[in-house]
């Protein structure tokens, strides 16, 4: 029997890392990630999790240590947010370039300045080109499930890429809600033991990892990561399927989740916890006889182009919500990418929830009203004060 606990998103993440029986954790505290690494420290201190916990002196070293450990063949976990993720920036590219299946929880938080500890998704969006798979979750259950899935995806021979599981700071990290915690044996059975074949530091098989990538080979290594990203789409879908068979929970097709799309001419596209609020509004409007749909993007990387095109083929008013802004372009990252693949459709972009600005039911309704009346692609900053 599984157990249901009323816990925070960070606790759910820590439970997931424990269930994955990680070997090495290297982490540095930062709001709103801290409660995750505190929980893990507790697990290790109590002997509930047999892992080496490296209390590093910075996020840069957290990722460096995870890379060292993963390159030695250990299953590794870390967690960070915001400035911490930005400090890791350099090492993120190295983790993916070295093809190491590290899994990281990112508690999404705004970037300074001004310093702001609250939620938006600018931190992880800024790392979109780093070669990491990015999963954006909607609730605490999905946090736990996605971290378990992340190991299965990352360690797949066809993928071998690190995964960040992004959950909205405070909105999920500090909110308690019921989370079903599967039995450890069943997770062990699902994941299997990580046995790296490409990367291992072992005196019996001396290899050189992280050499100088001369111009003769560098481009090929980049292409290989791109190809792995492409293969990851299939793997993410399969893992989502297999997970649902074993644990009876499913997240769309793994890449995207469609909600009330069938009859909807107006569709909102978004990532993360705001999708829950959108679902609530959609249900309310349905009672009034109005049909609005949601396409939740679960994996921003790899970007599910094909699925998005297919799911949105009949929609005419597309409202893309972004909790980030590409300064100098006046659009969010998702807005830019959606527009680039939906060339003949009206795609309006809504900048929402920056730095913890609450996204209310009225905000969602105003977006729906706006996109239905808009004549052309527009960008709107929602909820700005005078």
């Amino acid at each position, binding site marked *: 029997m599984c157990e249901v606990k009323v816990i925070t998103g960070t606790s759910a993440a820590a439970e997931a890392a424990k269930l994955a029986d990680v070997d090495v954790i290297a982490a540095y505290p930062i709001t709103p990630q801290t409660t995750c690494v505190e929980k893990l420290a507790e697990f290790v201190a109590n002997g509930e999790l047999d892992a080496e916990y490296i209390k590093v002196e910075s996020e*840069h070293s957290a990722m*460096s240590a995870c*890379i060292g450990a993963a390159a030695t063949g250990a299953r590794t976990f870390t967690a960070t947010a915001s400035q911490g993720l930005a400090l890791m920036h350099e090492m993120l590219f190295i983790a993916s370039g070295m093809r190491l299946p590290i899994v990281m929880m990112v508690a999404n938080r705004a970037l300074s300045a001004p310093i702001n500890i609250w939620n938006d998704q600018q931190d992880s969006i800024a790392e979109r080109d780093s070669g990491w798979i990015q999963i954006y979750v909607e609730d605490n259950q999905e946090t736990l499930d996605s971290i378990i899935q992340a190991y299965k995806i990352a360690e797949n021979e066809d993928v071998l890429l690190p995964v960040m599981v992004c959950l909205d700071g405070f909105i999920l990290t500090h909110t308690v809600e019921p989370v079903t915690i599967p039995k450890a044996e069943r997770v062990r059975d699902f994941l299997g033991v990580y046995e790296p074949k490409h990367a291992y530091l072992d005196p019996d098989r001396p290899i050189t990892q992280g050499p100088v990538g001369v111009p003769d080979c560098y481009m090929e290594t980049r292409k290989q990561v791109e190809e792995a990203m492409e293969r990851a789409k299939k793997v993410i879908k399969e893992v989502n399927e297999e997970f649902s068979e074993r644990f009876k929970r499913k997240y769309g097709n793994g890449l995207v989740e469609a909600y009330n799309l069938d009859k909807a001419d107006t569709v909102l596209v978004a990532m993360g916890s705001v999708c829950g609020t959108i679902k609530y509004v959609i249900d309310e409007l349905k009672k009034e006889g109005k049909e609005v749909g949601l396409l939740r993007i679960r994996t921003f990387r790899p970007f599910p182009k094909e699925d998005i095109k297919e799911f949105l083929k009949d929609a005419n008013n597309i409202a893309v919500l972004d909790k980030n802004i590409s300064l100098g372009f006046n659009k969010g990252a998702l807005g830019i990418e959606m527009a680039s693949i939906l060339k003949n459709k009206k795609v309006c972009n809504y900048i929402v929830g920056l730095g913890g600005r609450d996204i209310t039911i009225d905000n969602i309704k105003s977006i729906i009203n706006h996109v239905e009346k808009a004549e052309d692609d527009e960008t709107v900053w929602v909820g700005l004060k005078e």
Partner: protein
Amino acid sequence: MQFPREELFAPGHRGCAGCGAAIVARLLLKAAGKDTIISNATGCLEVMTTPYPETAWRVPWIHTAFENAAATASGVEAAIKALKRKRGKYKDKKINVIAIGGDGGTADIGFQSLSGAMERGHDMLYIMYDNEAYMNTGIQRSSSTPFMAATTTSPAGSKIRGEDRPKKDVAMIMAAHGIPYVATACISYPEDFMRKVKKALSIEGPKFIQVLQPCTTGWGYPPEKTIEIGRLAVETGIFPLYEIENGEFRITYKPAKRKPVKEYLKMQKRYRHLTDEDIERIQKYIDEKCKLLGL
């Protein structure tokens, strides 16, 4: 036979003729043996030994970035512990985890990562191969560049006479971390260096060795003089050889009579702007330092 014959550092690397860093690597591996994992910081040694698809290393080796050889090694060490305990890997083998970085990667950009790794008590040896400037990028000053040495970013001009700050004492800072073993060494004294490596590896916990390694290109001398110049650095007292074991300081090589620093300085282009007065100043500075150490 004085020295072990096994060559774990292969020829064919791209180091300059007379490269001191290559000598560090070769001696280090001879002392450490094959059950060793190397975490190498970005720098000359990393670049010259691993242009894909060639590697000079016959032991497992990893490079990730410039400032984090110690943090990367922390992860390697932790992984070995976890995998030994949880999955019976590496059997009963004792594996030496050795991080190696140049003076820039150690004393400057990698300083925080090094301090963290030493403070956390990882069972690892950190080797700082000290050539007293950023050689890989073309001889820019580091905090380990000595007083008055000219580099491309501390040039000898009409107003400023080369590097205006004394050399940062990294070994003593490491000793202040309270780690069980700290030593200085020089490639011109291979028995001494190798003995220190072996001793360090026999001790559990964090260890640090700073090894001076003259650089023909950066210091400006003919390649055949690499060993001779290193010897003079020690004989003049400019680079004293010592070890600090569990807090106990011991000079490991005491010159019978210290040679004048002039003999050392005169051989190198980086000091050719020095006047007799400048040399006198350096001599005084070194005399004071040696007095403190009992040299």
